[in-house]
């Protein structure tokens, strides 16, 4: 990734602050997306994303380039998100009401004849890993390889999760009256 190279070069040149200024916009969506895929709560995901960037800012001068920048950032994000999940220990469903309301207000997509809210509910009902894979894959037109890197899983495992998720979504939507052949 060219942005990663530029950021790494800045860090190695001892310009951690400048590197950080580039890193935040380059990784915001990925860090937030990954945090959200684990936490399923927009507010909590934003808090975790902030925490991750603060950690990165603190650790950036010590980054030695041995691991890929993205791998390093994803590992920090995953760990921070998992710690946050443990802290929360919510017994109720962690589906984010704010996102759900936002999606519901959009209503059905006229061109597709498919209800966004129904699709969102179906995504939310997927098993954790499948939901994570779907959220990350479709969030920013990512490749399966990138999603695998973000989730810390082998590429084939992510492919399986995506395949199963698509099948589950099609089945769920078929039940809801939307025909997927």
């Amino acid at each position, binding site marked *: 990734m060219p942005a990663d190279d530029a950021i790494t070069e800045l860090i190695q040149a001892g310009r951690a602050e400048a590197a950080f200024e580039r890193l935040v916009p380059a990784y915001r969506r990925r860090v937030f997306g990954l945090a959200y895929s684990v936490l399923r709560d927009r507010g909590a995901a934003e808090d975790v994303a902030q925490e991750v960037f603060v950690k990165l800012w603190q650790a950036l001068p010590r980054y030695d380039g041995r691991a890929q920048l993205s791998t390093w950032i994803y590992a920090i994000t995953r760990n921070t998100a998992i710690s946050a999940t443990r802290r929360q220990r919510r017994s109720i469903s962690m589906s984010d009401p704010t996102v759900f309301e936002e999606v519901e207000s959009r209503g059905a997509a006229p061109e597709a004849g498919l209800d966004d809210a129904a699709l969102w509910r179906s995504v939310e009902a997927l098993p954790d890993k499948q939901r994570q894979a779907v959220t990350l894959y479709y969030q920013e037109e990512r490749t399966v390889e990138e999603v695998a890197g973000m989730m810390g899983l082998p590429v084939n495992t992510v492919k399986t999760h995506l395949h199963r998720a698509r099948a589950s979504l099609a089945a769920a*939507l078929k039940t809801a009256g939307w025909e997927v*052949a």
Partner: protein
Amino acid sequence: MNDMDPRQKELEAQLRRLLGSFDASAGFDKRVMQRVATLATTGAPRADLRAQLERRRELVRWRLRREAWMNGITILGLGACAAALLWRFAPEIQQLAASAAWPVDRGLLAAGTLAAVGAAVWFLLKRMETTSR
């Protein structure tokens, strides 16, 4: 993906539309930059982090040192016990060795003992060297 069913394609497109725009709220970058700027001004977290790391490192060093001393004391204790037993039961051991079916080579016995002591001392010195780093 190219030979995908039209309905599946529609589902893919819908998922992209639904999740594609998913992002942190507006002003997120600014808030992060403000937060780190505040931290940079106070300098507390970095100093805290350094101090925390140093404390942890010191704790590990102390544990390793204690472990090395305990190992050393244990080995010396066992050695002393073995020596005392040998001293105490020397005649019996001598008698046993004399009556044994196989001949005991004193030189071999001494070499074996020296090798065992040497190995123990080498192990101790190695541990001391690691912990003093």
